[in-house]
């Protein structure tokens, strides 16, 4: 059966209740636009999609998708989506979570899902604030940030989600901005193609409690200068005039201008997302403006066996040599005796 979907097919009849101007609207649009592409690329049909979430503004997301959906409890989305995928690997499982949901209350489940490399796609909405509880600092809030629970500024160092992913032996990490709709859409397709846990961090704006938190890099005028979109197999070049690039000097990255000091395009690093050694990926993930452009795109995508594959293989292997095929046989296994 040839099915052609449109983004409209993935919109539910529920009214979207995010604040006007919230970055989540853009992510929803990107994901809905990506769905037909994903279905075409992977020969999926709509009923195979399950969107799972935890708690927070972004976690309302499943209600807005006309797919199967599960709105969980705070922090537990990774565990719920793990259960869905292991129970039925035929399903394509998408997890919506935020910086509080995934990195504070759900940090444990988040890192263990990644460690197991379960084939789920995690979209992490990072607005560096607790929005639904009206403005408390989160594990990604910048040091010193003033919020309702840090009236004199936070004294905590924030997490960089990509570092956590690498630390948990993650096989896929990508980053986008809410305003980069097309980039997000493309990353969604790449993450769907990836076997194993994919984590896509999307820097989103909270228009009410943390407005313009990402503005330094997301403003249209300066975005090209302050971010770099990485593409596998292509040189790490950025800038409005595509005249800047990244090179390695010793063990450190350095921004250079092409054409200055004898630097040519050939000197610029080629992005290899498939390199297993996470060293360079780590440096790219940690690049901060103003010293560096902030890295966007698919930063890491390496192949490894997935948890669900391993479970399936083990069951097949054990079943092949099984002595017990039914509960009746199980009950009679081992020592038994007869009373006559």
């Amino acid at each position: 059966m040839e099915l052609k979907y449109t983004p409209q097919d993935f919109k539910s009849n529920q009214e979207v209740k995010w604040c006007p101007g919230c970055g989540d609207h853009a992510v929803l649009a990107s994901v809905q636009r990506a769905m037909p592409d994903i279905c075409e690329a992977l020969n999926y049909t709509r009923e195979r999609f399950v969107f799972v979430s935890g708690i927070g503004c972004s976690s309302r997301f499943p209600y807005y998708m006309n797919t199967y959906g599960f709105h969980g409890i705070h922090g537990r989305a990774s565990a719920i989506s793990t259960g869905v995928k292991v129970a039925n690997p035929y399903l394509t499982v998408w997890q919506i979570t935020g910086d509080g949901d995934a990195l504070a209350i759900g940090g444990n489940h988040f890192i263990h899902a990644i460690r197991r490399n379960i084939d789920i796609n995690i979209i992490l909405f990072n607005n560096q604030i607790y929005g639904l509880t009206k403005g408390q600092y989160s594990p990604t809030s910048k040091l010193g940030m003033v919020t309702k629970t840090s009236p004199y500024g936070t004294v905590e160092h924030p997490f960089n989600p990509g570092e956590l992913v690498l630390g948990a032996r993650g096989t896929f990490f990508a980053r986008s901005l809410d305003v980069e709709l097309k980039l997000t859409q493309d990353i969604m397709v790449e993450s769907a193609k990836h076997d194993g846990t994919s984590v896509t961090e999307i820097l989103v704006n909270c228009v009410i409690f943390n407005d313009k938190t990402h503005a330094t890099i997301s403003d249209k005028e300066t975005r090209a200068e302050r971010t770099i979109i990485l593409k596998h197999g292509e040189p790490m070049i950025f800038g409005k005039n595509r005249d800047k690039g990244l090179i390695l000097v010793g063990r450190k990255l350095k921004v250079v201008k092409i054409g200055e000091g004898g630097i040519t395009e050939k000197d610029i690093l080629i992005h290899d997302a498939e390199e297993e050694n996470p060293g360079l990926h780590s440096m790219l993930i940690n690049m901060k403006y103003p010293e560096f452009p902030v890295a966007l795109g698919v930063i890491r995508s390496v192949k490894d066996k997935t948890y669900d594959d391993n479970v399936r293989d083990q069951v097949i292997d054990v079943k092949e040599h099984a002595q017990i095929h039914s509960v009746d046989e199980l009950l009679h296994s081992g020592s038994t005796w007869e009373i006559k």
Partner: protein
Amino acid sequence: MQHKVIDAKEVVIRFTGDSGDGMQLTGTLFADASALFGNDVSTFPDFPAEIRAPQGTVSGVSGFQVNIGSREINTPGDFCDVLVAMNPAALKANAKWAKPTATIILDEDTFDEKGILKAGFKTMDPVKELKIEDRQIVYAAITSLTKESLKDSGLDPKAVLRCKNMFTLGMCFYMFNRPLESTFAYIDKKFRKKPEIAEANKKALKDGFNYASNIQAIPNTYIIQPAKLEKGIYRNINGNQATAWGLIAASEKSGRPLFCGSYPITPATSILEELALRKDLGVKTLQCEDEISGICTAIGAAYAGNFAVTTTSGPGFSLKTEALGLAMITELPLVVVDVQRSGPSTGIPTKTEQTDLNQALYGRNGECPVAVIAAHSPSHCFEAAFYAGKYAMEHMMPVILLSEGFLGNGSEPWKIPSMKDFPDIKPPIITTPEETPFWPFKRDPETMVRRWALPGSIGLEHRVGGLEKNNNGAVSSDPLVHERMVEEREEKVRRLANFIPEQKVIGEEKGEVLIVGWGGTFGHLYTAVKEFHEQGKSVSLAHFDYIFPLPKNTGEIFSNFKKIIVCELNNGQFANYLRTQYQQFHYYQCNKVQGQPFIVKEIVDAVNAIL
């Protein structure tokens, strides 16, 4: 010494020693051999939380009690006829369990100054100090005899000492006329890859047997005829194994694959271990990062169409509380097994109790009634787990199955049932739309049960979650919708009473005193009631497997007795629950919170006090 052969109906043996002495295995092998011989058997492992507490100290003593009989056996026995103590600490901790007529076997070699002091005795004469001189004490140099027995085995001294328990077991096999063959077979299988160790264990067992028959020191030997059990094929089973198998049986009968998300916790862990073995039957187990993940992965699996379970004990159950509310409001089938242990908090992790009943009944935010079923014996765990699964799946709701450490670790012979005698399980699965758009919380008007729409089905796309919803699945904070949905969910659980069996009474249906119990105290309460019947007293027993909802005839039963006494291993949780459900009756209480099962005498005394 005069040697007596006692033809006994029932004998209790208690094996005690250091945690590393292998007493659990010794007891298990003795129980297995007795069951194979045809006796009825009940066992009670009683061990410390520490894996290897300091050697020779009282805190490191591990015990295993076995009750064998030529008649029906319902408890592991209160006091023992034979006590084996492998060191002074074991004697100190367990002398109180020896009957006045008991034979006590001691490893003489360990009763040196060092051992006696380590056990905390004040004098060098433990027997006198414990005032047990009148018991029949058998001093056997078990350590040196084992060394002598295995001097040519080629094993290192440490490995030789590990065979002490087999020497002891051999002595007991002589005393109780047990055949050695089944234990030989067990040893051969266990040490398949280490034949020298197998040979050493077998030799120690045999030499222990011969030693006991040669010396004149053993005062009594026992003949316990095979019990007159129902005809059939039997096996030994412990409660946790039975729970695991009952869950697998529910999976087979429903055609839904079994998924278990769990986190190791004493005394529930062996359910997860048993399920993990059963990949041959397609069981999926996920050892999670924590208890919360255990239940949440199970909830995800339930949403995706598996028969989902999570297994735990009290502290883990506390952690699962919020997620249990999620399973309840999303109306997904889920079995939560709580193998209760002594609490609160970490409490006494390896000791049994019934103190999680309140938590099971009430421990959630919001109006969140959840069905509660309790297992009453090790083998009954099979049936209890099967029906927990059946009701969870057919009624689309979480069901809490309460087991206890006493049941989970305890074992008994079990007449193996046939799966054809168990009912089918028919979950309300829907795979094609009956209406568009699909209403996830549309209910069967008779049962109030919603349909289980499996992801992957075309046209049934829908969303569920922790937010209150209307029957059509739309999120709603309408006050009246909320109140109605609360009522509908509760009514669904209440109507389960139309499906569970009526409560039975053991003894007369009308009389003076009704003993009320639930869970793992059944064997003790039943034994107490039998004693009253032998004395011609009007005492009956109503032992509840179904806690919430209660069987429909509960009130009627209660009304037929002048006095009701609720006996339980907590401070009155079931009694207080009954006070809310059937306020017209007065409830006496018999309670114990020591991390130990009842002693039959305690129940008898409590009942006599109100008779």
